């Protein structure tokens, strides 16, 4: 079964830790991987999901490329791939 790396920044890093990994069944999508991850942490579900849908203000990257919530429903990560999650940015 593929092991997927999940990296978090800012508020999400404080809540979930900076780098985690999770093993998911084959053919699990990015969204499904994050749902499985969220179920392992009490704080995660409310922060990341509204029902079964990823919250719209969460920024996602898959292997360092930005994706949206619709992409997350179709992309199937492979073993060793990286998903990054972070809240809205505030640089400058």
């Amino acid at each position, binding site marked *: 079964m593929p092991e997927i790396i999940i990296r978090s920044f800012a508020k999400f890093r404080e809540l979930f830790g900076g780098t985690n990994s999770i093993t998911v069944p084959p053919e699990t999508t990015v969204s499904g991987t994050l749902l499985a991850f969220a179920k392992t942490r009490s704080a995660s579900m409310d922060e990341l999901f509204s029902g079964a849908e990823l919250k719209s203000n969460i920024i996602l990257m898959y292997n360092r490329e930005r994706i949206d919530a619709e992409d997350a429903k179709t992309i199937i990560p492979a073993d060793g791939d990286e998903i990054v999650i972070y809240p809205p*940015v*505030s640089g*400058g």
Partner: protein
Amino acid sequence: MVLALQKEDIDISALIKNSRSTKDGAQVVFIGCVRDDGNMDALEIEAFVPVAEKDLRDISAEAIEKFGLTSVDIIHRYGRLELGETIVVILVGAGHRSEAYEGSRYIIERLKEKVPIWKQELSGNTRGEWVH
């Protein structure tokens, strides 16, 4: 052109001197700094550095294309910054002031909406809110 994230303070004079060319009729420097809002004594700035640096390169290329700039330098700091310290410097060169001003404004707005950098307020040893 310098497009980077760093912890160290920024030598703005050196940046201006190194960037200027005989094509420039104007240079505009934007400096973002840590404002005292009365309820904090420092900022912690977190960045996803490799992605942020790629984004700075992309934004720089966009601005050069869009406004015909002769040069773009962007340096954004991260780590703990005290009140009054410099957070970011954006230096643009152009043939004329209007392009330089517009290019500078474009770059800071794109940076604030896109680049993975976050600010957290610090008060003593207490970590406060993430700024949005």
